[in-house]
């Protein structure tokens, strides 16, 4: 635990009343809170390190895999067409499992059930590459959560989790990201926690990582036991984050400190 966070969090706790949701007119991507230098790295594809994984995902897209020896491209064709807008509406309802599924989960499902290949672990280079590649095809498109009643329960659960105090610091996601998004903690902008740029290249990690890895970081920061990768809790949080960010443009791959 870094001391600046503990210290600043104590200050945050002192000033918190009931956190209000951010009005739509005030919603802004985390990119707006970054320094000019970080924004410049993100803005230029030739300097954005996240593009290395987008490229890697692009070559995986064309590669035959699994017992089927089929590539993603053999079924889906050009990703620029077939995957455009897909990331903007994930997580979505998955009829096969009767539950909500996020983009990385959907890609892995296709890998297992359609390519007959082994499941890719969350945070593996391959799954991050494919997710970055598919996500990148929606760059510039507004986040558009599906209007699907089968997602209501999970979305409500995500909202509840977002507003539940947790960890030794007894803070909710909302305490920071709704009530104190203008603030800074130990030098970093708190931001409104919008999932616009995932997977992101994080300077801290020196590599690319998923939204779930980012959320785990925040949970560890308040000294809570983080949810497991791919868990229903994380997908629920992702659903709520997408709803909160509806209309903001996808930026994959974003760059964060």
């Amino acid at each position, binding site marked *: *635990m*870094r001391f600046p966070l503990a210290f600043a969090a104590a200050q945050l706790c002192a000033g918190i009343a009931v956190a209000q949701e951010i009005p739509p007119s005030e919603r802004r991507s985390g990119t707006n809170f970054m*320094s000019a230098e970080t924004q410049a790295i993100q803005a230029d594809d030739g300097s954005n390190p996240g593009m290395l994984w987008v490229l890697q995902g692009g070559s995986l897209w064309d590669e035959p895999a699994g017992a089927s020896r089929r590539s993603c491209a053999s079924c889906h064709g050009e990703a620029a067409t077939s995957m455009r807008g897909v990331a903007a509406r994930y997580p979505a309802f998955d009829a096969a499992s009767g539950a909500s599924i996020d983009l990385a989960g959907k890609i892995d499902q296709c890998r297992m059930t359609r390519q007959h290949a082994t499941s890719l672990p969350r945070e593996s280079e391959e799954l991050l590459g494919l997710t970055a590649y598919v996500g990148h095809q929606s760059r510039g498109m507004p986040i558009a959560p599906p209007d699907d009643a089968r997602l209501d329960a999970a979305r409500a659960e995500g909202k509840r989790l977002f507003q539940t105090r947790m960890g030794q610091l007894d803070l909710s996601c909302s305490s920071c990201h709704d009530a104190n998004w203008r603030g800074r903690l*130990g*030098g*970093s902008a708190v931001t409104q926690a919008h999932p616009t740029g995932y997977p992101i290249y994080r300077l801290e990690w020196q590599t690319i990582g998923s939204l779930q890895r980012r959320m785990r970081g925040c949970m*560890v920061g308040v000294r809570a036991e983080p949810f497991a990768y791919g868990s229903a809790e994380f997908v629920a949080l992702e659903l709520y984050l997408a709803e909160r960010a509806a209309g903001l443009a996808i930026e994959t791959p974003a760059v964060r400190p």
Partner: protein
Amino acid sequence: MSVAKHKFRVGRRGLILVGGAGLLVLALPPARALTRPSLQEAVNGFTGGTPVETGKVKLDVPPLVENGNAVGVTVTVESPMTAGDHVRRIALFNEKNPQADVAVFTLGSRAGRARIATRIRLATSQTLIAVAELSDGSYWSSSANVIVTLAACIEDLS
């Protein structure tokens, strides 16, 4: 996942207490820290002891950075970049990382313009210096101070 802490941050006395797991990670073997050359010694190693003049070199680096893992640096040298008068090499050195060297770039007259940009790691707030070697054998330099702040949320080791 990440087996190691992503810590190049040796500035805070080399000790980082990692959350959750409660592990004490020694980020830098202290013995090695003591044996690194000073900034001056590192520059001398590059110039072979030739005196370095101030000027001609412009070192652009943000005065305050959000994360020391990737600090953007641009070095520009005043030079016509002709066959007879050009920048041969540009070297970058730091004051407080475990090693003084950052990189040496070899340009030559075919570069057309004496400017390079890169991204470097800074373990803590410190001084950076850029030294240019010209085709006439002279050396020119410029330095800058950078303040490194930290990101707030950290991760477990799982």
